[in-house]
């Protein structure tokens, strides 16, 4: 087993940078790094040392060393966290030395993989760690913490228990046919199975909101030039700016901002300026606009309410995506509140980007996607697509068992779906995992975590 090393804090300059080392040669490497073979490291004690390997005239840095003895560490192996000054240069040098002294750069997510391998985390907890780090809102963070604490696993164990009870009843009936066992109460069992299926399906459904919490609600602002899209965009962003870094995977685009409304993460995209240029650029712009609309969870179509109602060239139907019609410029005297039918719009809201009027109502309408869940403390939500899929399939299996029971088939057929459901649930907590799942999960994990 290699000894791995990685930078655990975000790259860039900061006051402190933390380098984490995990593996069998950890203490050996650290001793060499400080140039003191007599160094004693005690768990629970921090020591301050100069990082000055033998032969170096000058220390690289003065660092704080924290030692975690196996198995009482994040990974379950011997771990040392070196807190240095957060200069990228220094951090680079320290890591280079560790590599020279016998360490290896960790793969993305490798620390957590080891934690998983050493039984320190189960699979759903490992996913939760990832989510916690990636959380872009309070609500998402809270969900991740709940999962990390094992709330999902607990819910799953309860369901597993009930499934096992049902399986036991059925298996006993067919196996111990000569024993004096009570008759299988089919009615009762049927109801019980439907209840279990309901629980699983209900939990699966929370993914609708759950994934929004984790990935953020994508809202696109669309409309013709000069209706005030940018003003509205800026108004929303100014008052709802979230403390957030780049959104991974997208190119840096000043037209997209992550905001937080009442604790819910919203990704706001403005399509302003994309149609106000010459032909060539406009063609590009139209493409991007269509893309932004297609990707959106919610489209805000802005119209200028101060202009007479004309044959508004409303955007092409966005096939099922939520749409709000926002009539801007209600501060102007020529503003008309009309009563025309807007079938394809969920709601019509009058605002003034300039004065801020109507914005509260707009914000409320935007986050109504999150349903009744109060971002501050909602029930357990499923935020991971894989878990959602497993739960849904488990629910289907149990439902099909109930149907087979209803049809009057024999126990060995009824029990099939229940065994399948049990296995699927086991997949969520990691009782049965496959390599593909592992790599899929950990490839999204950043180095050093």
């Amino acid at each position, binding site marked *: *087993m290699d000894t791995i090393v990685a930078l655990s804090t975000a790259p860039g300059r900061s006051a402190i940078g933390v380098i984490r080392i995990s593996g069998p040669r950890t203490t050996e490497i650290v001793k060499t790094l400080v140039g003191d073979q007599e160094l004693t490291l005690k768990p629970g004690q921090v020591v301050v040392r100069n990082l000055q390997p033998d032969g170096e005239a000058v220390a690289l840095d003065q660092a704080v060393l924290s030692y975690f003895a196996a198995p009482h560490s994040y990974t379950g192996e011997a771990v040392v966290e070196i807190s240095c000054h957060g200069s990228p240069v220094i951090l680079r040098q320290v890591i280079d030395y560790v590599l020279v002294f016998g360490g290896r750069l960790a793969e993305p997510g490798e620390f957590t993989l*080891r934690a998983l391998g050493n039984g320190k985390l189960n699979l759903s907890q490992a996913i939760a760690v990832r989510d916690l780090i990636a959380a872009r809102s309070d609500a998402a963070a809270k969900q991740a913490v709940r999962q990390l604490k094992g709330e999902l696993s607990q819910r799953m164990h309860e369901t597993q228990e009930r499934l096992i009870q049902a399986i036991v009843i059925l298996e006993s009936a067919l196996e111990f*046919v000569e024993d*004096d066992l009570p008759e299988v109460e089919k009615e009762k069992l049927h109801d019980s199975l439907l209840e279990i299926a309901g629980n699983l399906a209900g939990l699966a459904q929370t993914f609708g909101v759950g994934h929004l919490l984790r990935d953020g609600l994508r809202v696109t602002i669309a409309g013709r030039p000069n209706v005030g899209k940018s003003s509205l965009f800026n108004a929303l962003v100014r008052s709802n700016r979230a403390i957030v870094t780049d959104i991974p995977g997208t190119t840096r685009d000043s037209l997209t901002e992550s905001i937080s409304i009442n604790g819910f993460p919203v990704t706001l995209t403005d399509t302003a300026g994309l149609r106000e240029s010459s032909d060539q650029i406009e063609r590009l712009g139209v493409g991007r606009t269509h893309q932004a609309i297609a990707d959106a969870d919610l489209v805000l179509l802005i119209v200028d309410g101060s202009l007479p109602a004309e044959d508004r060239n409303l955007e092409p139907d966005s096939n099922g995506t939520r749409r709000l019609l926002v009539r801007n410029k209600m501060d102007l005297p020529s503003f008309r509140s009309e009563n025309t039918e807007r079938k394809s719009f969920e709601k019509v809201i009058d605002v003034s980007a300039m004065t801020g009027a109507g914005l509260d109502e707009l914000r409320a309408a935007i986050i109504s996607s999150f349903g009744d869940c109060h971002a501050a403390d909602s029930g357990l939500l499923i935020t991971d697509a894989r878990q959602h899929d497993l739960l849904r399939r488990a629910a289907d299996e149990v439902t099909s068992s109930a149907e087979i029971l209803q049809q009057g088939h*024999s*126990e060995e057929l009824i029990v099939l779906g229940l065994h399948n459901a049990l296995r699927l649930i086991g997949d969520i907590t990691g009782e049965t995992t496959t390599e593909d799942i592992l790599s899929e999960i950990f490839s999204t994990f950043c180095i050093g975590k």
Partner: protein
Amino acid sequence: MSFDEVFNVIVIGGGHAGCEAASASARLGASTALVTMNLDLIGQMSCNPAIGGIAKGHLVREIDALGGIMGRVADRTGIHFRLLNRSRGPAVQSPRAQSDRAQYRKEMRLTLENTPGLHLRQGTVVDLILDRNEIRGVELLDGRKLGARSVVIATGTFLNGQIHTGPKSYSAGRAGEPASIELAEALKRLGLPVGRLKTGTPPRLDGRTIDWAAFEVQRPDKEAVPFSFGTDDIQQEQLDCYLGYTTSEVHRVIRQNLNCSPLYSGKITGVGPRYCPSIEDKVVKFASKDRHQLFLEPEGHDTNEVYLNGFSTSLPVELQQDLVRLVPGLGKSQIIRPGYAIEYDFVDPRELGTDLQTRRFRGLFHAGQINGTTGYEEAACQGLIAGINAALSAQGRKSLRIRRDQSYIGVLIDDLISQGVDEPYRVFTSRAENRLMLRFDNADARLRPLGRELGLVANRDWDRFEARKDRISELRRVIKETRVRRSDASYAAASLAVGFNLGDSISLEQLSKRAGVGADLINSLLPQPLESSGMRDVQSVLADVLYEGYIENHKTQTERLYHHDALRIPDDYDFRGLGGLSSEMVERLERAQPETFGDARRVAGMTSAGLSALLVNLTVANASP
């Protein structure tokens, strides 16, 4: 070393494992000796005089399909045949029959004596003769030395057997028979991991002292379903059995006297089977039940002896007598053989390979109770496999491996050698992940070809099998193509039977998938309905149809889940070097020597975290050579 006699294979023990082993070995052309302490007790059923039961009946069918003998003997001596779970699906139906205990012994011995190449020898084996780690033969108490290339130990409950009845305990292999002590010690000396198990048996009664009218009659099936594929019907006269119950008074007295029970006084250290509890166990663990079932099973036509099923006990004999007399209908009954508990040695079956050969000693095979199983059928199927492999090994031929997706025999052997045993192992249908595929009626399709290849299936049996195979496939075609139409006379009856709208027309195949549609109905709708003798074929076809979809489904699911199972583990793989495995897990893996990830997955005590670590490691190793 000079031997008094030399054989290819020696089988130690004449019980159910020993008989199958000796018979198969001899028929494979290896000169075989069956060495037993008492020739008169070959094929003795130690406890319940019955063969079969849920999952056990499956085993007997599989033994028969492969060319073993238990099924035939049971058919010729069975006096109360019942097909269990008739009202349930075909995959969980299983035949059972009570046998005339004395007749069974006689038939079994006759079968063995008529097997060319099989030599019966009475004697007590006291030691194994080994040269380095290779078996050379056995040594008997009377000084004789018998040479052999393969030895199968099938000693049942005899190894260091210790009988307990109340405060008394004494060495015995079975009531009235001496234990095998020297051999047990020899095995320990060889360093084999030995453990202790226990089992028990109920008292036998004098049938003349029973008030039969007080009991509920249990009649055998009108049409007995035989065990052997070679049996057309059961000839001998059948007997009824009787059902009764204990009372709370019985339970009270038992509870008062628990301190007299060697189980509860701590005298017995061996672990017993949870699903074959003594009456003391039942009363203690299920205190809320005010009555427990008892079955009175007559032991044969020519005897008054009656087996009291459900009253396994090791309480003192006088107390047994008092207790039995408290049961309604048994007020004047007389015990002629008391019940008792017996402890015995077993050897950890994880020592064995898939051929049931010990890993350490070439040519040494273990079969039956010595491997920690309980039950005649469990013993017999191991005896069959061990006997086959003992002969193949002696002949320098490749060994036979039975897979768990192929048969319950495969499930049993795989469970034993990969999981070991914590308590006496008994088969259940739930032990097989592929339960739907392993039916009692399709054992021939699954295993006859294998038996034929080995040379254990006679021409007559093979011809019968081929004929049945053809009939079934033809029948399947007919059922698929025949449709019941609205205009048919039979439509109304069919509609009524299933209780819903059949549409304009429905194929018999579709119809048969519905619950409540039985073979009789389908048969009546065939263009040419079959005679009752053909009903078994119809039933097999319908079972195939019923389960098809579910089996396909299951296959795709497990393929997805277990598609890493085929991942090979290199021979010299270092489990110790893997992070995430406890030292206990490492030990188990090193012992089990799994060849694939699938094997490793089934090793007892493996956690998912450990498996993840192994899987990740193997995949990484495979990716970067």
